């Protein structure tokens, strides 16, 4: 079932039959939530240095970003994309290693938390500066075209806050000029850190930006997993089939602080009462139960399985050595003989 939901029209997806990959998606969401809850508790216990940024409330959108990508596709997740990262194939031990600063993690203690990726495996490693990943995704797709590859797509995530950066605009526009097979999934979680939408932008609907770039645009309810899977899945399909670049704008509420250091006391009660403020994981689970897609025992086993995976990953990372300044080569370039003043 295809939901285009263009221009914010509400669909009745919740009453329709769920997407065929609904359960698979649910399990990734569960894993992401379990993992992030664990990270939060480690953070509270003082075992994580720096920030912890979670995707609570955004798992349905995020998982859909990761699930329809195949080998050879490019994924550029951002800070609230644990579900999508896992669905795309990031081992959760990489998450644990990065948050705990293990030398064996993909970032080797050099970078932390959500600033991770394996560009060699087509998972781009975000820099903090919002908007910057879009054009980099475009470039990766351009390279694939240059090299004669076929049938690939790229998916780049953004928040409604990041959409206001110049970098995002240029990236979106250059994607359209190059007509690369790109999907941009923008999640409007109604806040950029503490700033509500009315100080971020002034258009009626962010999906209205699509047309001005030559993108095809869709709005979705980000609490509705089926709709997320339908619309993002079909956007990926359309991009792969050679349609113009695709923009999907999802509406949710961030159900956490900006980071775990933030109590989000600025989120108003009125905001919390909005329909998009519902917890997508709870809604998804309710649907699983209501439609009898899985029984209580199965659900319980999935939960346990997620917890076990998370515990294992954390335990592994905790046992691993931290980076050692003495063993670092302190070298920002790969061409060793061109290092300026080697230490």
């Amino acid at each position, binding site marked *: 079932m295809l939901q285009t939901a263009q221009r914010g029209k509400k669909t009745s997806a919740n009453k329709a039959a769920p997407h065929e990959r609904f359960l698979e998606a649910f399990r990734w969401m569960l894993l992401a939530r379990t993992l992030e809850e664990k990270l939060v508790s480690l953070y509270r216990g003082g075992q994580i240095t720096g920030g912890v940024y979670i995707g609570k409330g955004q798992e349905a959108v995020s998982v859909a970003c990761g699930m329809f990508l195949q080998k050879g596709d490019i994924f550029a997740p951002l800070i609230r994309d644990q579900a999508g990262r896992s669905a795309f194939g990031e081992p959760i031990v990489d998450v644990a290693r990065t948050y705990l600063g293990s030398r064996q993690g993909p970032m080797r203690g*050099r970078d932390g938390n959500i600033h991770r990726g394996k560009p060699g495996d087509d998972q781009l490693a975000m820099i*903090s*500066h919002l908007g910057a990943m879009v054009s980099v995704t475009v470039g990766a797709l351009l390279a694939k075209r240059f090299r004669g590859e076929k049938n690939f797509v790229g998916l780049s995530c953004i928040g409604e806050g990041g959409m206001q950066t110049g970098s995002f605009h240029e990236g979106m526009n250059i994607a359209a000029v190059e007509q690369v097979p790109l999907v941009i999934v923008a999640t409007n979680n109604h806040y950029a850190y*503490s700033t509500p939408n009315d100080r*971020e932008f002034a258009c009626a609907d962010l999906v209205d930006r699509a047309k001005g770039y030559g993108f095809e645009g869709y709005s979705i309810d980000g609490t509705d997993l089926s709709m997320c899977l339908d619309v993002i899945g079909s956007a990926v399909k359309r991009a792969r089939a050679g349609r113009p670049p695709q923009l999907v704008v999802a509406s949710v509420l961030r159900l956490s602080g900006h980071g775990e250091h933030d109590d989000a006391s600025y989120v108003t009660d009125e905001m919390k009462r909005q329909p998009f403020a519902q917890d997508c994981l709870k809604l998804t689970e309710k649907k699983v139960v209501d439609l009898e897609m899985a029984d209580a025992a199965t659900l319980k086993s999935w939960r346990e399985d997620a917890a076990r995976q998370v515990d294992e990953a954390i335990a592994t990372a905790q046992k691993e050595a931290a*980076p050692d300044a003495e063993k670092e080569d*302190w070298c920002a370039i790969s061409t060793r003989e061109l290092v300026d*003043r080697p230490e």
Partner: protein
Amino acid sequence: MSITYLEAIREAQARLLRDDERVFIYGQDVGGTFGGAFKATKGLAKEFPNRVLNTPISEDAIVGTAIGAAIKGMRPIVEMQFADFSSTALNQILNHAGTHYWRTNIPVPITIRLPSGGTKGSGPFHSQSMESIYAHYPGLIVMTPATVEDAYTMLIDAVAIDDPVVYCEHKYLYYHLKADKLPDKGLPTGRARIAREGRDLTIVTYSAMVQESLAVAGELARENLEIEVVDLRTVKPLDTDTVLASVARTGRLLCVGESFPWGGATAEVIARVTSEGFHLLDAAPVRINAKDTPIPYHPNLWSAHRPGAKMIAAKARALLKE
């Protein structure tokens, strides 16, 4: 009573808003009940709801808007969420604010606050010190306060100055530094401060490295080695006279900065001292900077990347033996 470096910055802004209707604060998350990622504007929006304004994530437009407002008579204070993000406003800062007076004869009195420098676990994009980039280009004043008192009076001075000021406040000092009370006035802008007197060696430094250097000076004093510590306060203009006078007394120069090693403030100080006071030096000048890699996330790596008291003490001792 005790007041932190961060509170001094907030107090300065509160005073500025109260005393001068032309002042407004513009930046991400500075407003509402929140008051900024570091709470440097906490409570100010309550008192001045129309003059403490949240912005979109648009550094270029934030600075551009501030420039336009300054041209038309306002005194905006821009808060960057982290100094590192000013890279996307750099064009407006260097090429617009920095050139405007010279081109048009109309000055641009904006103050851009850059929460700068490394803290534990902040990583490559939330730890940078960008003073050397802004000081390299013409048209900007670059302040790097190292004490609670300076954090306060220099911010007030910054807003009073008719020209654009890049005010680099150090995040590491936010909570670490405390003072008993805030002075009404400090040293004039552009004047370096002798943070500690000594006759054996001059350490020229600024921002968070002043505290590290003072710690070293204290440590070495126990061995009867007298280190003079010069706190530059502003890296542009750079108070060459005070630096040269100190080197004239000690004959030895160690320059300490937290930013990347190539070029920058420490190179500039050494270039000035050696070209203008070559004969004052009894030994080769020495400098200490961070390493030439991005700033690492992990504390183990970060504490080796960032210059600290240990390295400063070692280099000072070695230089004293020259």
